[in-house]
């Protein structure tokens, strides 16, 4: 699926932050025209979200494709050996994730988890935060519709 800004006749680009799925698996994906700056959101229903998750690709994955083996299996099985689900939040040294924050980000479906992490990290950096905790994640949710 591609999005075109009609007035500019220019392809819109996926915004790699500002994305968070809701518990009901509805998803908001943001696209922006780099020419005029106009943004739109594509809202998916649960079934559309599920479809993407099952083919083992990631939204925004062009630059952040997971290198973890058995990525879909490890992240989708209700119970799997821990080593298969070793995606950990943010590798930025200056940011510390509390256990609760780690747990919350792990609950985000794997195929949008990288983008969700970016959203949180970018918000934390913009606000000078060094610790990512549940309170900060609540702020992000209020801000971007998590």
């Amino acid at each position, binding site marked *: *699926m*591609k*999005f*075109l800004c*009609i007035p500019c*006749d220019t*392809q*819109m*680009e*996926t*915004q*790699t932050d500002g994305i968070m799925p809701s518990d009901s698996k509805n998803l908001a994906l943001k*696209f922006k025209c780099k020419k005029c700056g106009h943004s739109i959101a594509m809202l998916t229903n649960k*079934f559309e979200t*599920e*479809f993407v998750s*099952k*083919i*083992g*690709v*990631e*939204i*925004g*994955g*062009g*630059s952040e*494709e997971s*290198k973890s*083996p*058995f*990525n*879909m*299996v*490890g992240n*989708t*099985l*209700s*119970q*799997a*050996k*821990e*080593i*298969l689900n*070793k995606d950990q939040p943010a590798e930025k040294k200056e940011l510390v994730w509390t256990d609760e924050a780690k747990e919350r980000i792990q609950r985000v479906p794997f195929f949008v988890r990288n983008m969700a992490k970016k959203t949180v990290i970018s918000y934390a950096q913009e606000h000078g935060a060094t610790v990512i905790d549940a309170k900060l994640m609540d702020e992000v949710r209020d801000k971007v519709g998590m």
Partner: protein
Amino acid sequence: MKTYNDLAGDGGSNFVGQVTSQLEKLRTRLDKIKHKIALMSGKGGVGKSSLTANIAGCLADRGYKVGILDLDLNGPSIGKLLSVPNDVKLNVDNDGVHAGEGANGIKIMSMDMLLPTADTPVMWTHKSGETASWVSMLENTAIRELIADTYWGELDYLLLDMPPGSDRIDNIKELIPELAGVIEITIPSSISQHIVAKSITKNNTVGVPIIGLIENMGGYACPSCNAEHPLFSGQDVEELCRQKEVDYLGKIPFDPRISEKTGNGKLFYSEHKDSPAAKAIDVSADKILNFTKSNS
């Protein structure tokens, strides 16, 4: 206004690129394996997994590097047959998830190795009804990941232990177009032959080569005197082969020990090479080797 084809990429997610990359990874992995063979049966309970393990043992004993991919995602049994326990420690590194090593040095990957306990079922979610519509797609992706993300090293033979039924062969054909062929397995019962005939027809229809048909549990070999007695009534399996124009790869007599590992953790084939069943496995293995040699 620009059209779909005027726009390069998809604006950031690069789904096509990701899928292409998945397939390249798969290709790289498969290129290190000389022969890929699927073992199928129409019906369950015909001893397909036990036979797969013992054919692999036979090939390994002849000096070939052999692996088995257990594609019976919901009823994996190869780990148990090859003495690779569920709690085996997974070795994960940049090469992928390393295949386990079982009896006779056979490499193995199975869903059982990925689950936390021996009695954990393959469930894609805790919530009932949540994924029912998606199971087929999940399993397709799981099979692709099992093939592409397993580090097998170099192999002469990779045997694919297929689940009962013939629905997954479409998936395998797409992922492994160079599949050497399929070995069909039936027992002599008329019901099993009825179903395996459908499997043969399907493979012929979709263009998957059939190496031949093995008649498993074709009689009972008395452990005391080695005399054979019939176990099932049904049409002559060789007659079915003639009707369907597939090669008859042999008759393996029933031996209750074939699905059990020995006290040494070895396969039945290696421990009881003089038994009628092991000798029959040898004959079938010869025919499989001849097929792959003459078709490679």
